[in-house]
């Protein structure tokens, strides 16, 4: 559950950039003949809405209505009592509250005269909510559209890059400390929570699972403002050889990463090191956009031949599955350039302020 710092700081992302994000989406809507875009979010997945407004849905669900012209409006089932806070921590000025989304959308959009309302990234909308909207918007042409807001988030802006570097540096340093010898799984997670929330992270998803040979697999996903960073580390393990092999495989995959590289190519690069894993272990090498880390990339399509986009921030994971069902992973967040990838979750990475 989201319970970390929520803040809107114009020194981090200037007001002009917030306006340009909405304007850029509105241009795409106009080009596509869309009068109003509706974007759904819930407490676990609301980054499209945050990208456009900085709003954090810390509980329940919400819909952002973005007209092709005019101000975005947030539709929520939460009480108007929280509107003041929402306005304080977001760029929103227009917020509406009601019992259900159908009524809210109908009241906001009014009777349609053949205009087009598009549900962005419609495959991820709860089908019941989408149906409710369709039923309520008489006179409107309700259509489905691509994930336009997600697409805009895939390559970070300059201010976003600065925040990603800062968040990743903090996370890398904290996770390195939590992976030190002698800590229990609970202690590792506690150390991560303390370090990252004290540093102003909004959300922390940390797991510490015991793997084979006394090795603990520590995985930490953190949300810094609305951006995601991740690192996975192996702790303990004594004499076992496979943790070092997995780390070498991760290093090789990161070294091979650059714009245009595919997961298949990363796997190839990691292969010599992965061959040193126990014969009955199954290895997987994959990458996921930071923009998809709210869901671990599990709702996006990542075919093996999908190239790494230039300028993107991605998480590269090398994971081993053992015959008893346990998993262990090493993962890094990297910035993808034309000539290589910059690892930003390293323990020694300087944290910009």
């Amino acid at each position, binding site marked *: 559950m989201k319970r970390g710092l929520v803040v809107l700081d114009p020194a981090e992302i200037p007001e002009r950039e917030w306006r340009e994000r909405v304007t850029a989406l509105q241009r795409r809507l106009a080009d596509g003949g869309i009068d109003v875009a509706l974007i759904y979010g819930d407490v676990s997945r609301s980054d499209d809405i945050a990208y456009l407004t900085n709003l954090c849905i810390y509980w329940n669900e919400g819909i952002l209505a973005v007209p092709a012209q005019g101000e975005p409006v947030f539709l929520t089932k939460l009480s108007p009592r929280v509107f003041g*806070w929402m306005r304080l921590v977001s760029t929103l000025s227009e917020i509406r509250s009601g019992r259900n989304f159908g009524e809210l959308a109908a009241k906001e959009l009014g009777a349609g005269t053949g205009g087009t309302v598009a549900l962005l990234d419609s495959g991820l909308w709860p089908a*019941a909510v989408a149906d409710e909207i369709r039923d309520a918007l008489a006179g409107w042409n309700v259509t489905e559209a691509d994930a336009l807001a997600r697409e805009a988030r895939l390559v970070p802006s300059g201010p976003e890059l600065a925040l990603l570097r800062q968040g990743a540096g903090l996370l890398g340093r904290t996770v390195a400390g939590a992976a030190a010898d002698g800590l229990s799984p*609970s202690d*590792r997670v506690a150390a991560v*929570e303390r370090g990252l929330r004290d540093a102003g992270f909004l959300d922390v998803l940390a797991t510490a699972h015991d793997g084979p040979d006394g090795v603990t697999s520590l995985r930490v996903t953190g949300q810094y403002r609305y951006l995601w960073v991740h690192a996975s580390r192996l702790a303990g393990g004594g004499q076992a050889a496979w943790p070092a092999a997995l780390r070498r495989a991760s290093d090789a995959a990161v070294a091979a990463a650059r714009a245009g590289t595919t997961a298949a190519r990363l796997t190839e690069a990691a292969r010599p090191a992965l061959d040193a894993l126990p014969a009955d272990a199954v290895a997987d090498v994959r990458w996921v956009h930071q923009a998809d880390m709210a*869901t671990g990339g599990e709702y996006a399509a990542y075919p093996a031949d999908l190239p790494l986009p230039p300028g993107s921030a991605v998480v590269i994971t090398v994971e081993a599955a053992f015959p008893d069902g346990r998993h262990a992973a090493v993962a890094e967040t990297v910035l993808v350039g034309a000539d290589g990838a910059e690892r930003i979750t390293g323990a020694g990475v300087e944290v910009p302020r």
Partner: protein
Amino acid sequence: MTDHDGRAGTGAADPDTAERDLRQRKVRDAMAAQGLDALLAFAPPWRRENVRYFTDAPVTGTATFALVPADGPVSAYSTRPADLHAIAAHGWVTDCAAIDAHAPAALTGRLGDLRPARLGVAHYELLPRLLADQLRAVLPGTEIVSATRLMDGARLVKSDWEIDRMRRVDAAVAAGWQAFVDVVEPGLPEYAIVAAVEAAIKGLGAEDNFMLIASGGDEVRGMTAPSPRVLERGDMVRTELTPQLNGYWLQICRSVTVGAASDAQRRSFDLFNEAVEAGMAAVRPGVTAHDVARAQNDVFRARGYGEYCTSQYTRVRGHGHGLHLDETPIIEGNETELPENAVFIIHPNTYTPIAGYHVLGDPVRVTPAGAEVLISTERKLFEGATR
């Protein structure tokens, strides 16, 4: 969310087949009464209670499912392969498979084999169209209905096994609140309080936590996620803190002053404490949520603060607890009966002009003798340091 393998000492070690069988029997009886041939529990990341009910396992996948046929073994599915070990290791469900959200073959294949005439989906209201379309495609002749209420009903009355689990959460509740009180001091930002609480409860094996907070004086109207606001001497800092341990959530609502409490803050506490006690006094098997809410609100009305029990100032007078943190709302007008062994928090949290928003409440179990408080933290207005 956070989970880990820190099970030693936290009580989630051995699968209890009697509890598992009891749950499956309860749900299958309800399925039969509603003419369901199968039930599919869907869990998005923020509503995993029904999958947990059948698996007793902490899962982390973006989409997880438990499939309960009218008879035969329950099976489970996750978009995160690492979940399969967690599910199988708990022993309640051993038939589990990884799925791709874009082609969940293991799940749709099983459903295709079952071909239920009528399928209930718990949290059908939250099922993404991507997945809903694939269910409909593989079950063209099946009537698919929501089973969310069915599962809410099944979970309402806790077994002794569950009550025992919930009692154990008190250790995290107490440690979390103590960490909160210990860290409060002038100059500390709100979010640093959360960091201290999280470290304390995660060190005890808590999987997750739901927490809202507010600090300040009588201008405070409600709680939110933490801000950069720094505490000042004389502030009252309010929280609802809800650790999840071994699947079960348990909430505490308390307020602490930064330094000595003012007379107004004490008067405010006295009013809210009287309301909590009135709510508790109303508890007995078969009482309704409305009755418990009205008992609390009557205290405010009798003292001339009745308007502050409306939705302009507050939400609920409490809510159910269990594998989800916010179940049956305790509000006037909700005629849901609260049977023996239902668990809910009584919290009359609201704004009044006395000292601003005040937060106070304890989780209770319904017993034949009345309300049994499930936490050990003293119900008082705490006073923090002014270091």
